[in-house]
């Protein structure tokens, strides 16, 4: 699939009905989502035939993209019931059955789920601007869930911190910024004065440390 096709497909995915500020429910724009997905599929071939987890899946844009790009099974995890309802409806929009399951869970409560694993984890986590450290909680959880690689978006301003966290604390085998992208954040909430605002974000790829199979 071409990048353009992917982007236009992403445009058809319904957004949050009423985004919740405390969860930083900003939509993953079609631009960002399609580039993340395209990189995973084309540069690394880590969707085809693989299992995938979309952590903090929201309306399931990344989950749907992963399934369309050949993932064998995708699990979308989110804490918010309303988002999951929209996500489920988004999946059902497609004529072909997409192998996506959803689980409602808090990212901070995933530590006890040692059997929930996927080859590839994709996520567009909160940037941690509303609840400090939320981005780090997502990253920690992703390292637990992934058997191989993680693709994630983080603010470029946190690059050094992410690098240290991933390599020192989480013992990533590799931690690499693949691209710097512009997050065109539409004015989602009332307190946003500007119509939209560009934020520089990094597309990261992490490889998790080798693990013993259970």
């Amino acid at each position, binding site marked *: 699939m071409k990048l353009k096709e992917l982007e236009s497909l992403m445009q058809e995915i319904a957004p949050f009905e009423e985004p919740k500020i405390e969860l930083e429910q900003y939509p993953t724009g079609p631009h960002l989502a399609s580039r993340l997905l395209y990189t995973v599929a084309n540069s690394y071939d880590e969707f085809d035939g693989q299992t995938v987890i979309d952590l903090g899946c929201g309306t399931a844009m990344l989950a749907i993209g992963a399934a369309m790009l050949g993932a064998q099974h995708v699990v979308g995890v989110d804490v918010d019931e309303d988002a999951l309802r929209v996500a*489920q409806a988004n999946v059902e929009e497609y004529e072909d059955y997409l192998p996506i399951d959803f689980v409602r869970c808090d990212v901070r409560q995933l530590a*006890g789920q040692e*059997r929930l694993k996927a080859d590839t984890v994709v996520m567009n986590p909160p940037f941690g601007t509303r609840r400090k450290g939320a981005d780090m909680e997502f990253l920690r959880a992703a390292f637990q869930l992934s058997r191989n690689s993680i693709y994630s978006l983080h603010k470029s301003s946190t690059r050094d911190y992410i690098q240290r966290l991933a390599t020192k604390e989480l013992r990533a085998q590799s931690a690499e910024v693949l691209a710097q992208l512009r997050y065109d954040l539409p004015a989602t909430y009332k307190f946003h004065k500007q119509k939209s605002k560009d934020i520089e974000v990094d597309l990261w790829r992490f490889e998790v440390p080798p693990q013993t199979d259970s």
Partner: protein
Amino acid sequence: MLQCHIKGVQNGYPLKVEAEKVETREMDFEPDFLRHIFPRINWPALREAAAAMGVSDLPESASEELLEDDDFLKKFHHALLEVHLEEGSLVCPETGRKFPVSGGIPNLLLQEDEC
């Protein structure tokens, strides 16, 4: 692949399925994927969950050799990928705590005093 993660629970796996509504959706048969995922499947847990959803033709035990057997693979495929719990519960074997499944989505959120 989910387990009960309430603090202090030693044996929160496998969760037992209580089925109220089960749906079957046809999926493409991909033997390679089944071989890929097989080592991660707890066979007795899958078998028991499938049985609770009305699929009772899985053999009691399974081994790598069986993965060459088309008939076995088809049953495995059906139980793993085509049968979905739409409404019901996942029940912790130790505490009996029920995690409700609604619209096909299990709710694993814990209360504050559980974590």
